[in-house]
């Protein structure tokens, strides 16, 4: 009745070949990109408690996948609310869940889906962004520190921590951001397209400078301002609605707020529809990286 796992391999694994098989499996499970980082690479960047082997003893490597969120068609929709409800379909999470099972089943090594959600405040036990950088999938950008992939630009990442001793991929040598076009824009206007779309000194969230070599010199990101604009129909918005309701003394106003359009959208967003939790894509909309992938017939 039950499926029997693959028999334990008798001879030592060819880890280069295994790495290719793992990557191929990840792409087959729906990832758009996949990379591998060595577990010890975290030593340099994060404190104790947040490294791969703090989550899985004897962890040797971390497989990271990225998947596109909005479709090319969604980027073209003239109705911005379309992007608000179709931004993410969890393809990265599905791929990494399947991949963790694949590694345990096929290679008999431990594998876990790295926990990337916050458990207190805004602190996740494991940073997918750092994992993506260390696995050579992208580099941080001016746009809210989002890790941009050279081919696709914005991606959603997930990671699998494993005791499988896979060889790591090199980190990208070339920064993805700023794009050469953005360097030129900066030279002429003093701003990149993303900063121009959301300038911190004019009520926006972004600022930064580019050095003489065309690389990021400094970055400013107003996270609180961005969150209050980017997360308006997910759990965060639902909390706003509730906080407003429970502090409203006037029963008529309370009932009115409960039945408001915003409240109804917040409730539908967090319940059945699992709508996107990020509603402001404006810094990404003007980003030239990955734009080629959004051009279809």
């Amino acid at each position, binding site marked *: *009745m039950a499926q029997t796992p693959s028999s334990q391999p008798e001879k030592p694994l060819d880890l280069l070949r295994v790495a290719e098989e793992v990557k191929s499996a990840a792409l087959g499970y729906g990832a758009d990109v996949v990379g591998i980082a060595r577990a010890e690479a975290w030593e340099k960047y994060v404190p104790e408690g947040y490294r791969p082997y703090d*989550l899985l003893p004897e962890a040797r490597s971390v497989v990271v996948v990225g998947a596109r969120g909005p479709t090319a068609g969604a980027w073209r929709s003239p109705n911005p609310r379309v992007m608000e409800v179709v931004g993410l379909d969890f393809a990265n999470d599905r791929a990494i869940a399947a991949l963790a099972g694949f590694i345990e089943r096929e290679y008999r090594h431990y594998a876990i889906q790295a*926990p990337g*959600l*916050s458990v207190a405040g805004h602190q996740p*036990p494991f940073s997918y962004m750092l994992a993506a950088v260390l696995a050579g999938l992208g580099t941080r950008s001016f746009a809210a520190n989002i890790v941009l992939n050279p081919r696709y630009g914005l991606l959603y990442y997930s990671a699998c921590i494993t005791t499988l001793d896979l060889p790591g991929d090199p980190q990208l040598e070339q920064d993805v951001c700023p794009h050469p076009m953005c360097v030129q824009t900066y030279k002429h206007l003093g701003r990149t397209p993303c900063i121009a779309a959301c300038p911190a000194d004019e009520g926006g969230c972004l600022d930064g400078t580019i050095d003489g070599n065309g690389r990021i010199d400094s970055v400013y990101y107003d996270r609180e301002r961005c969150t209050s604009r980017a997360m308006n129909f997910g759990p965060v918005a639902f909390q706003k609605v509730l906080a407003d309701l429970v502090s409203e003394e006037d029963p008529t106003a309370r009932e009115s707020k409960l039945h408001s359009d915003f409240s109804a959208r917040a409730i539908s967003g967090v319940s059945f529809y699992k709508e996107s939790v990020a509603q402001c894509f404006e810094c990404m909309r003007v980003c030239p990286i990955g734009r080629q992938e959004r051009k279809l017939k």
Partner: protein
Amino acid sequence: MNPAKRSLDAAAWKDKLKTTAIGGGALVFGVADADSFEAAPEGYRPKEILPSARSVVVIGGAKPRAGDWRSPNYQHMELSSTNDRMTALCMRLAHTIEREAGYYAVVVPPGVDEGQRPFLSLSLAAELAGCGSASLAGPVLHPEHGFMYFAALVTTLPLSPDQPLTDPACPAPECIAMYEEQGRTPCIAVCPIGDGGCLGGSIEDGRWTGRQYDRGRCMARVYNYWGPAFQKVMAEVLQEPDKERRRMMIHSSLFTRTLWSMTYANISQGQCFECIRVCPVDEKTRHLKQEPEP
């Protein structure tokens, strides 16, 4: 031609559904006779979900992986283990039955009906379909895979039913030996009802009997970031006289995690796995390699 008009090869259909289920990630597959649910209360039997139902197809899987059990960070288990993968796979089987075989099929809703009662007990369905047996700890355990999440569908497709297990998975031989020596099993030892825990019971002739389970206590410990936690926090918020404190409670880490858990993120809905952590039934499936290849 309506596919239902063709002659039905029930054995081939059972094989096809099983192959699809296993290929889709299920660890176990079984079929129960729709008329065999006498133990279920009236109103909660297969034919009360789907008139003329003949079979109940049960699948199980999506259990914590070997690696999950090894993580020293307990919050990892709170963020990773989910049952919705089995429900989605079950929906795929239901579509296959309707579209290709031409028979009705309804996925048993994974949630609960009035009074916290399931529409159809997945535990009972799993037992009747031979996918496992009831345990002292509570969950239905499969002899090889132990604890897992189940999903089921009710269909008018007549499939040959499997039989309940003749040898229950619980108590395992190790537990019988421990009980004979210490008077308790591993799960009872880790959560004894007489010492602030949830479980009790005894073993006679190699079978457990007189099971005690404090459901209220267990629920209060297991469901801390899901629907019940939402109710807890809201009840407290509505009792709080100070307006600013009410707002703070809504924005607390506990409530934030609760919202992510019950809504968008599909994160775990059960946070205490301790009785299953010490269960030896699928112990052998939790041991994999951790050393580099020689």
